[in-house]
C-alpha cells in the first residue's frame, strides 16, 4: 500500500512517515499543498493523509482539485474540531477526518478502513485456501496458526489478496509497496516474494513471467 502524507510540520511529518513505514506502507511525503497535489495527481496512491492547514495551498483546496480528477481515499487531519471544519472537509470529498492531536492507533485504523472501503473488499478477513488474512489485525494464518511476516511481506500478501484473481504487474507492486526513495532497488520485490513463498507455500503466489504476480 502506498500512501501520500502531506503535512507542513517537519517533526510531525517525519515521525508519522516513519510510523506508517513501519506498518508496512510505502510513504511519500509533501510539505506544502502544491507539491502534495502534484504528487497526488501524478502517482496512484492507495490513500492520502492530508493536513488542513498547509502553506501555498490549503488542504481543502488540494482536496477540491484532486477530486476533479481522482477518487483516491483521503483522510484529513484537522486542528479544529469545530463541526464547520469537518463538514467542509467531508463536503470537499474527504473520506474521513482525524482531529489533532490524534492517537496513532486510531489514525491507522481509520486508514485501513478507508482503504478497505475504496476497493471492493468490505470484510477484514480474507480466506484463500489454507491461508487466512486478517487485514484489521494485519496478521496471516496458515492452517489456523499465525505466520510471522515482515511489514513489507504482509503488504505484498495483502495487496495481492485484495486483487485476487487478477494479474498484478511488477510496476504496480513497486508503486504500491515502495515509496519514492526506494523504487530503484528492483530485486527487492523478488526477495519479498520468495520469502512469502517460504512461509505460506510455494504455490500461494503465482508468477506470470515477464508480467507480474497473482493469487488465484
Amino acid at each position, binding site marked *: 500500500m502506498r500512501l501520500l502524507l502531506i503535512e507542513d510540520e517537519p517533526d510531525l511529518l517525519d515521525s508519522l512517515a516513519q*510510523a506508517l513505514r513501519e506498518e508496512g506502507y510505502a510513504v511519500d511525503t509533501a510539505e506544502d499543498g502544491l507539491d502534495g497535489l502534484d504528487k497526488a495527481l501524478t502517482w496512484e496512491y492507495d490513500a492520502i493523509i492530508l493536513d488542513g492547514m498547509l502553506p501555498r495551498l490549503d488542504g481543502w483546496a488540494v482536496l477540491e482539485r484532486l477530486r476533479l480528477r481522482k477518487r483516491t481515499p483521503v483522510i484529513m487531519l484537522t486542528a479544529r474540531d469545530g463541526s464547520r471544519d469537518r463538514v467542509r472537509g467531508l463536503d470537499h470529498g474527504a473520506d474521513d477526518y482525524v482531529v489533532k492531536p490524534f492517537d496513532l492507533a486510531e489514525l491507522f485504523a481509520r486508514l485501513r478502513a478507508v482503504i478497505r472501503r475504496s476497493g471492493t473488499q468490505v470484510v477484514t478477513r480474507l480466506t484463500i485456501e489454507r491461508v487466512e488474512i486478517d487485514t484489521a489485525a494485519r496478521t496471516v494464518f496458515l492452517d489456523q496458526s499465525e505466520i510471522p511476516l515482515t511489514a513489507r511481506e504482509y503488504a505484498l500478501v495483502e495487496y495481492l489478496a485484495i486483487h485476487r484473481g487478477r494479474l498484478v504487474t511488477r510496476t504496480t507492486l513497486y508503486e504500491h509497496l515502495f515509496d519514492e526513495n526506494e523504487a530503484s532497488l528492483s530485486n527487492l520485490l523478488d526477495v519479498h516474494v520468495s520469502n512469502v513463498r517460504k512461509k505460506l507455500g510455494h504455490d500461494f503466489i503465482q508468477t506470470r513471467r515477464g508480467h507480474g504476480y497473482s493469487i488465484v
Partner: protein
Amino acid sequence: MFFTNSIRWRLQIWHGLILLAVLGGFGFTAWRLQHERTLTIATERLLDRYNQTVRLLRQSGPPDGGRPRPGPGGFEDDGPPPRPGPPPRREDFDAPPPAADPAPDLGPNNPNPGPNPSGPPPGRPLRPRSGPSFYGFEAALKADEIPNGTVTVWRRDGSLLATTHPGPLPSFPQNVAVSPQIIRTGNQLLLLAATPPGEVIRISRDLTSDLLPLRRTAWQLAAAAAGILALGLAGGWWAAGRSLRPLATISSTAARLSAGNLAERLRVEDPNDELGQLAGVLNAMLGRLDTSFTQQTRFISDAAHELRTPVTVMLTQTQTALRRERPAAEYRQSLEACQRAANRMRQLIESLLALARLDSGDQPMKRLRFDLSRAAAEQVELLTPLAAERNVTFHQDLTPLPMEGDPDYLTLTLANLLTNAIHYNREGGTIHLIIRKENNEAILTVTDTGEGMSPAALARIFDRFYRADQSRSLPAGRTGLGLAITKSIIDAHRGTITVESTPGTGTTFTVRLPLTAVTAPTPTPAAGSEVA
C-alpha cells in the same frame, strides 16, 4: 412575607395607604363641615327662640305698666310693638317660623346680639317685675313651642317665671351675662342669657334629632369611601401589573440568557419610557458582553488550536518511538523533536500569560528612565544572527532618546517588531529601523522589504492569533500573539501603533510613544502629571 418581596405588592400597599388617607381626610372634612352646619342651624334656631322669648317677655309685661318691655337690644325702644314680620325662609327644620323681631337682630350671621349694653342705660330706672302678672307668658311660650327646645325663665331672685320644661326643672344658673351665651353639653345645646331687668332665660335644645341625619351622612360617606377604596385598589393593582409587565418580560428574557447564548436582546416597546431606557441600557450591556464573550471564546479556541500542533508532534513522536526497540540515535531524534514542540508550547503559554497580565492590568507598567535607542541597538545586535540566517541586513538611524516607560515591555515590542520584520522579509532583504523625537513623542519605525499585506490583512494584523496567511504554520518561535502583545504594551504606554503596507514592496510599522506620560493600563488622572 412574600408580598414584601414583590414590587407590585409594595406599590399596592402604598397606593392603598395613600388612598385611605386621602379618602379619610376628605370624608372627615365633609362630615366635619356638615356637622358644623348642623350646629350652626341649631344655634340659629336657639337664637330665634331666644328672640321670640324676649319678645314674648316684653309683650307680656306687667299689667300696671301696660307698656311693652324693652328688648335686650334697645331699652329705649318705645316704638310700636313688634309686628309679626313675614316668616323668614329657613333651610331646614320645619319648625313654625318665629316672628321676626327686627329690633334685636340676632340673625344667623350675628350670634352675638348687636349693640350689647352691659347694663341699663343711665337715667332710666328698671322696675323689677314680680307677681303673677306674667302668667300669660308661659302660655304664650308653650303656644309658640319649637320642637326639641325648652325654655325656662327665672326672675332675678331665682324664682321660676315660666317654663316649658317637661321634667324636673334645671337648676337656676348663676352669673348669667346679658349677651346670650351658647354652651354645648353632650347632645344638648344650651343658651343662657339675662335680661336687663334681671330675668334669666335658659333655652335648651336636644340635638339628637339634629344629629341623626349627620350620622346617616357619616355612614354614606364611609360607604362611598369604601367603594372608592375598593375601586382604587383594583385599579392600582391593574395599573401596577400593567406597568410592571415589561419588567417581567425583561427578567424572563434575561433568565434565558447565559454565557453561551448572549445573542438574544430584550424587546423594547417604547424606547423613551423608563423601562424602555432600562431595556436599552441592558441591551447595550448585553452587546458588550456578547462581543467580549465571543472574543474570549475565539481566543481560547485559537489558543487551544495553537497548542494542538505541538501536542500532536509530541504524541506522534513518542508513540512512534515506543513502538519498538530503537537505536539510541533515533530516540535522540524523537526527544529533540519533543523538545522543540515543548519549547513552542512554552513560548505560546508565556505569550498567553503576558497577554492575560496586560489585559487584567494588575501589573502596571514600570516608569523608568531609559534610552529607547540604546535598547533598540541592543535588540538589533541580538537579532543580527537570526537575520543573517535569512541574509537580511539591518539599517539603523537611531537618535539618543531618553524617555520614561517600562524598559522590559518596550524591549519586548522592539524584539517582536524586528523578529517579524526578519521572518516576513524576503531572502536578502533589508530592515530599516528609525527612532527620532518629534513633538515630545518618540517615533519608531520598522520597515521591511517583504511581500507586504493586503488591506484586509492589515485591518486584522493586531488581532490575536491572526496570520496574514491562514494556512501557513508559524515559523519557529512565532506564536501569532506577538503583535497583539505589542499593541497591548503600547496602549498601556498611551502610545499608538500603525501599519502601512504595499503588497510586493514591504511593510512599515510606526510606533508613537509619549516621552513622559506613562500610564498604567487603567489610567488615573494623576498618572500623567506625576511623571512630569
